[in-house]
């Protein structure tokens, strides 16, 4: 049973409550760095690290942190993790760090992270909190990757820098430019709406059929 519960926490963040597609959180880093898959994944990993790390800490110390200063504590914890991530990336992959630029420190302001601390980690035991953070972070990573992949494939004809089409492919430059970020995410959300719409419609049809059948 227990195992199931934590699995639930994990999977809900990846899909049903996906922070980007379902909750529309963490938009800023999302759009700014997803002009290529590699940047998107790097950003996703950094966020992953920060989110899971701070959730773990916050949850572990949740009974010691007084309510009045909890936000300040969260921010200090998050900022610490972000700084760690920042320096690590800078040391290990300076090229990627240069591309992501100022957006790594900005993870601090990502409301997804603070929101998870406030809504979940500070209230639940460590194991659940970590599962939740893992789920959310994975969902965020997934969203970043899908956006980055779409934008890179169309915008550069490549994925992770590997050319996918013939030499003559005409890149869709807009995809790499800012408007492409807004438009692609808009269209992806539209697609999700559409799926939900169709699903609701389908469920309604089923209900209808059942009612008339009885």
């Amino acid at each position, binding site marked *: 049973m227990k195992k199931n519960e934590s699995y639930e926490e994990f999977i809900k963040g990846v899909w049903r409550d996906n922070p980007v597609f379902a909750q529309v959180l963490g938009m800023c880093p999302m759009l700014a760095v997803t002009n290529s898959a590699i940047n998107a994944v790097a950003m996703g990993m950094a966020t992953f690290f920060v989110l899971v790390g701070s959730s773990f800490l916050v949850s572990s110390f949740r009974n010691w942190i*007084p309510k009045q200063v909890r936000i300040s504590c969260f921010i200090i914890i998050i*900022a610490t993790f972000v*700084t760690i991530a920042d*320096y690590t990336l800078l040391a*290990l992959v*300076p090229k990627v760090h240069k591309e992501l630029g100022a957006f790594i420190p900005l993870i601090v302001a990502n409301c997804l992270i603070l929101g998870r601390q406030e809504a979940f980690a500070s209230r639940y035991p460590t194991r659940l909190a970590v599962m939740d953070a893992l789920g959310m972070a994975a969902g965020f990573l997934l969203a970043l990757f899908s956006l980055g992949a779409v934008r890179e494939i169309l915008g550069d004809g490549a994925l992770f820098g590997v050319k996918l089409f013939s030499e003559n492919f005409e890149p869709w430059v807009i995809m790499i430019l800012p408007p492409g970020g807004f438009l692609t995410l808009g269209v992806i959300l539209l697609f999700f709406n559409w799926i939900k719409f169709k699903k609701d419609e389908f469920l309604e049809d089923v209900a209808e059929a059942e009612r008339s059948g009885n």
Partner: protein
Amino acid sequence: MNTRVNNETSGPSSMRLVLTLAIAGLVSGIAIIGIYESTLPTITANKARELREAVFKVLPGVGQMQALVYRDDELVVVESQGKDEPVIYGGYDESGEFVGYAIPAAGPGFQDTIAILYGYIPGDKLVVGMEVLESRETPGLGDKIYKDLEFVAEFSALSVEPEIVSVKKGTGSNPNEVDSITGATISSKAIVRIINEAHTAWATKLPAPGSEPAMQVAETASTEAGQ
């Protein structure tokens, strides 16, 4: 299970609040300093390597370099750059003979600031290399300023006096003319302008050719800089 959290009616004392924050800050500070110290060598090394690579690229034939700043009316060798103090790099060959300067410069491009580094040989008044360090120019158009090798090659022997001018592609004939890139005229002109401006700014500050600061061994203190 969360009922245990934060349900004290009286609330914690302010002493406890301060203490919590202080501990958090302390732990965080230690963690940050720890990561900083442990990554610092790699990061510094990375940065230095990048800089060297760039300088060597724009100044062919260079084997050593040192940072120079303009202080008290002369160019002096420095270890670390002061704030708001523009720095340039002196390039020397393996034997310590002065070759030229690598000058960083920046200015507005089509989209945002473009930062470049260019190599300059004061004796011949020639630009001998140009490398774009940072730009947000449009992929496919503006990014040709560093992707179009033909364009980059324009800067391998470019006379800066009289001022560099950019001309339509295929019409450049004089030593001070750069063929601009079709479709990215603005970005290519921006590079030219940035170099011109930087050149004007530095021209009066550079010592007469032949009297450049000599290469110093890295360990020496910079007391006897100059000459």
